[in-house]
């Protein structure tokens, strides 16, 4: 069954038509990559899935995004609940300027998911273990999060998201500020997480999409050009634009 169903979705920044009639069916517990040149709308599409675009003035949308069969742009939806269910990790690691522990505990506390210290301790440990950060930092949990390396900070941001137990994790170019070694390690982490979460990743790095994802969407100028199995997109795409892009002829 498809977890995220995007139907005839359009998005405008004031007069600018940023997403044009997008249709995608994203499956559960798989990694779906969205690729395309800068400005093609791939981040905008990702940011539509947890409605974080709402914070920008003059954004309007039409069409439907169903998550678990419910239209997230419908009138009954509670945006905060939606965003707890659909976590997001950003391009630059953005831990809060508080301790490592408090970063992970933040969502639990503020959302009142847990108030008991033992449960919070447990969840923090579990989340940090899930991102393979626990062993490195278990002795300095109360140090400032910004004292970590960029890669560790990005892992921490992923831990912070999964602490509030989302079903879907959106990754917006999560490795773009990391070096190649750190990138490789974050990719391994994604592969480990894909059994538990439905992951959608935006990347400008085609090799990354090829390495980690099951399905790939190729976008160009606000339109979805092609969406298929990753293998097919990279070896035998059906559209000429896709072929030109993945073979490096532009972008």
């Amino acid at each position, binding site marked *: 069954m498809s977890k995220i169903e995007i139907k005839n979705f359009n998005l405008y920044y004031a007069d600018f038509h940023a997403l044009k009639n997008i249709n995608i069916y994203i499956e559960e517990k798989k990694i779906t990559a969205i690729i395309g040149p800068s400005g093609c709308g791939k981040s905008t599409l990702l940011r539509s899935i947890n409605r974080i675009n709402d*914070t920008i003035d003059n954004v309007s949308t039409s069409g439907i995004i169903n998550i678990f069969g419910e239209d997230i742009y419908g009138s009954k939806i509670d945006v905060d609940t939606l*965003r707890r269910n659909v976590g997001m990790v*950003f391009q630059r690691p953005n831990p809060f*300027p508080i301790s490592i522990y408090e970063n992970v505990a933040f969502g639990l506390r*503020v*959302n009142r998911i847990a108030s008991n210290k033992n449960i919070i301790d447990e969840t923090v440990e579990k989340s940090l273990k899930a991102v393979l950060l626990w062993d490195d930092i278990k002795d300095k949990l109360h140090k400032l999060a910004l004292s970590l390396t960029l890669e560790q900070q990005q892992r921490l941001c992923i831990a*912070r998201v999964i602490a509030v137990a989302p079903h879907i994790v959106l990754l917006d170019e999560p490795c773009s500020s990391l070096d190649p070694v750190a990138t490789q390690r974050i990719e391994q982490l994604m592969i480990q997480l894909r059994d538990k979460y439905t992951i959608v990743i935006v990347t400008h790095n085609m090799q990354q999409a090829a390495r980690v994802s099951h399905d790939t969407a190729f976008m160009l100028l606000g339109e979805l050009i092609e969406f298929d199995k990753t293998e097919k997109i990279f070896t035998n795409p059906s559209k000429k634009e896709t072929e030109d892009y993945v073979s490096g002829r532009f972008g």
Partner: protein
Amino acid sequence: MIKLSPKLSQRLSYTILFLATLLAIIPVSAIIFTIIKNGASAITWEFLTAMPKNGMHGGGILPAILGTLSIVTCTIVITLPIGVCAAIYLNEYAKDNLLTRIIKLAIINLAGVPSVVYGLFGLGIFVMFLKLDVSIIAGALTLSIMELPVIITTSRSALNSVPYSFREASLSLGVSRWQTIRYIVLPNALPGILTGAILSISRISGETAPVLFTAAAFSVPHLPHSIFDQVMVLPYHLYIISTQIPNMPKNIIFGTALVLLMMVLTMSFIAIVARIYFRKRRKW
């Protein structure tokens, strides 16, 4: 036209720029020097803690110090919460539309209104229309209206300096907008907001015109009992003893000025220290 050698013109322009800078420092130092030189001899324990005696020719200036402190305290108690709330609304919630732009423009322009105009406005609204009479509260409300734009502007820039990525990170955890402001934005903006508030305190301690018609008295024989009392305030007291009372000892006049100057400079100094302290702690 005379052609100067590059070396000479470089030296000439350096000298001119340096002298211009020096010119800006000289008056400040001269003021401080003169006031300390002429007023230091008046500063005694009695001068700071006693009531005026002999038609202000002796005794102390305690009522004026307390009057200024009480008006400043009332003002900041009124302006800080309102100003910060308005700043939060404008910075975090308000959509960029015509109304918001008009409000923002009004706030900027309010800061440019001459202070005597605020004084007259306070006299009309608070003293006469609301019948608060000439009192601490009328003066504090008048100063509040004057200071509100400044507090809003400094608080807004403090809120603005909190990286947008913190807000996005918090929202994307399902944390509501208000909780994001409450737990992420405000704690990180607090140092900036406080620095702005301290500078406001220092500014309003020295204001004369807004309290002239709304709070200040020539002489009050007792200390203020409530916020509805008329009070003596330092800047107005200084004006009175320098112009209205004959044969005033010079050191009392300068001593009063010194006390006022010290109050204002101490506040600015605290603000500077606080800013350095918080800037060091800030890691992003």
